[in-house]
């Protein structure tokens, strides 16, 4: 959605059109599209990444401070940042969190997926398919649907509040476990609302599967975690649709971050090429890890795999929302409080890496810690910087069909393509300026 009307500013032989601010995208950034001789010449997505600030900020901090600090990087996915951090640090200390504590971490991650996916599906993405400029405009005609989405989101929030202390920035995750663990009764108190949300998630899948999608099926390289038995949250090997199969320790050998001249952000490429992470990648690479109850709904709406249309990311996100609710209910039913809320930690010097599945895709952390438990180096590769090159490539592929259209039609189409990725561009403010430049 453009907040302002397009304003043309002729200048010499080219025309620069400032299109305004893109809404319904998490973060801040800018998009510049250059069209020459009737063809898309260049697409540059500029973003400003807070992880760069935090990488420096973490240096010199004690490892115990890390979960609380990294939770501040993103208001939408604080759990993901905490999980990648504690797993990487636990690797250094030779600590393995198992049993109910591991289950609680999965449960917390369920809360974040439910919350993040419900927001994107209902308020940020659905308006694109139903022809509304915003979630508010959509709510006027679809109040019941929006209310349903907000209530699903709240069910996710409730999990995050209970397990994380605060819903937006969980504070009780720590290296070795949690600062406290819930009672059975506390978890059971969430059950009824989660049951309601599970049924609502089934309705959500049916709803989004009925949308019309543009005919657009790029040849993607999907990358996601893959675990022996589970749909991935915290653990698994990093696999791709092209046969990559590595541990998190090997991530930086295969996925290289490159500086691009027009952005402060780094673009991450797999063997030099763009790739996609997130719900679509996860569903395609892990559909055999989804429980039968989820696959039945999938089959019921008549979707076939692989799902390669980025606009159908809304379907993948809805399927994952149902999965997270099923998994949360399963974990609550199994739960027996552990005897201790966290395992004893023995500080060791070393380097540790971990990747977990943030709502938007794999989130890589690497830490170097000294013998006193002080962070000497931190490296964070968020999902959006991995998807950034792929978003640009999608825009290059999608735009040619639109070049005869007006600037505002092109702008809206660009925004819709970008929104498929639910990009969390900055995690603090929300300005994405779009600039279209074309030859006269």
């Amino acid at each position, binding site marked *: 959605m453009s*907040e302002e009307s397009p304003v043309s500013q002729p200048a010499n032989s080219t025309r620069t059109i400032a299109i305004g601010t893109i*809404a*319904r*995208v*998490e*973060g801040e950034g800018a998009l510049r599209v250059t069209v020459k001789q009737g063809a898309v010449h260049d697409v540059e997505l500029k973003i400003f990444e*807070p992880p760069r*600030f935090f990488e420096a*900020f973490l240096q010199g901090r004690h490892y115990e401070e890390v979960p609380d600090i990294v939770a*501040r990087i993103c*208001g*939408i996915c604080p759990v993901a940042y905490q999980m990648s951090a504690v797993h990487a640090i636990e690797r250094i200390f030779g600590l393995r969190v198992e049993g109910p504590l591991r289950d609680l971490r999965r449960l917390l991650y369920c809360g974040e997926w439910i919350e993040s996916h419900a*927001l994107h599906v209902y*308020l*940020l993405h659905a308006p694109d398919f139903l022809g509304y400029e*915003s*979630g*508010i405009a959509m*709510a*006027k005609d679809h*109040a019941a649907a*929006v*209310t349903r989405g*907000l209530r699903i*989101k*709240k069910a996710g*929030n409730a999990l995050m509040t209970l397990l994380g202390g605060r*819903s*937006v*920035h969980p504070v009780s995750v720590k290296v070795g476990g949690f600062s406290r663990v819930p009672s059975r009764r506390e978890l059971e108190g969430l059950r009824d609302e989660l049951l309601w949300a599970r049924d609502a998630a089934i309705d959500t899948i049916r709803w989004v599967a009925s949308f019309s999608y543009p005919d657009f099926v790029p040849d993607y390289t999907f990358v996601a975690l893959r675990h022996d038995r589970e749909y991935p949250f915290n653990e698994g090997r990093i696999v791709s649709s092209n046969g990559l199969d590595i541990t998190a320790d090997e991530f930086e050998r295969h996925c290289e971050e490159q500086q691009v001249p027009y952005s402060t952000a780094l673009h991450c490429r797999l063997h030099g090429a763009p790739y996609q992470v997130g719900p679509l990648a996860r569903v395609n690479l892990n559909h055999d890890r989804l429980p039968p109850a989820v696959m039945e709904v999938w089959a019921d709406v008549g979707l076939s795999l692989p799902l390669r249309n980025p606009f159908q990311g809304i379907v993948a996100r809805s399927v994952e929302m149902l999965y997270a609710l099923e998994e949360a209910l399963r974990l609550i039913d199994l739960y027996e409080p552990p005897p201790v809320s966290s395992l004893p930690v023995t500080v060791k010097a070393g380097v540790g890496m971990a990747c977990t599945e943030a709502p938007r895709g794999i989130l890589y952390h690497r830490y170097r810690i000294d013998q006193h438990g002080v962070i000497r180096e931190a490296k964070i590769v968020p999902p959006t910087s991995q998807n950034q090159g792929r978003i640009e490539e999608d825009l290059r592929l999608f735009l040619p069909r639109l070049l005869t259209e007006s600037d505002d039609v092109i702008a809206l189409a660009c925004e819709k393509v970008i929104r498929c990725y639910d990009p969390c561009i*900055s*995690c*603090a*403010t*929300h300005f994405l300026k779009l600039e279209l430049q074309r030859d006269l």
Partner: protein
Amino acid sequence: MMTEALRNDAMPHDVGSSCRPSDRTSVRIIGLGNEWRGDDAAGLVAARRLREKIGKGAQVIEAQQAGTDLLDLMDGALVVLLIDAVSSGKPPGTIHRLDASTGPIARNLTCRSTHGVGVAETIELGRTLGRLPERVIIYGIEVAETGWGPSLSQPVEEAVGHVVARITQEVEESQCTSSTS
């Protein structure tokens, strides 16, 4: 819509008819912001100080990047006093007092602190869905610096002090109204 854009040295003391009968559950103060983005933390800092100052006079909530959760945070309150950082081009430290109860607030006044769905959008969403409290007052503090970092600039620090004083007065007066009505 009522909008006041005031320099913090020109704060009015008479909040008059904005007082409502209240108790702790009916008046809720919500401070929004990101405490790692400099002046963006203004609302959070103000809420923190109000909690100490007002005590049981009102519920006080600090919310980092609340987004649509703001609707849940407002649920059940009669009066909500919302404090957030704003950026509209006015001098840093300028205090805006907006009454969102009567109509949409200007989008260019809000708000740097939430993302995806901002404060203005969330309030309009609440209005559309019939979920707004009877009265929603927004205190917007004009920012100077919102780069990464944990401290407030001096004009914003001063403005926070004025907002805390004014909201304290507003809550106290509403309690007076409550006790005499």
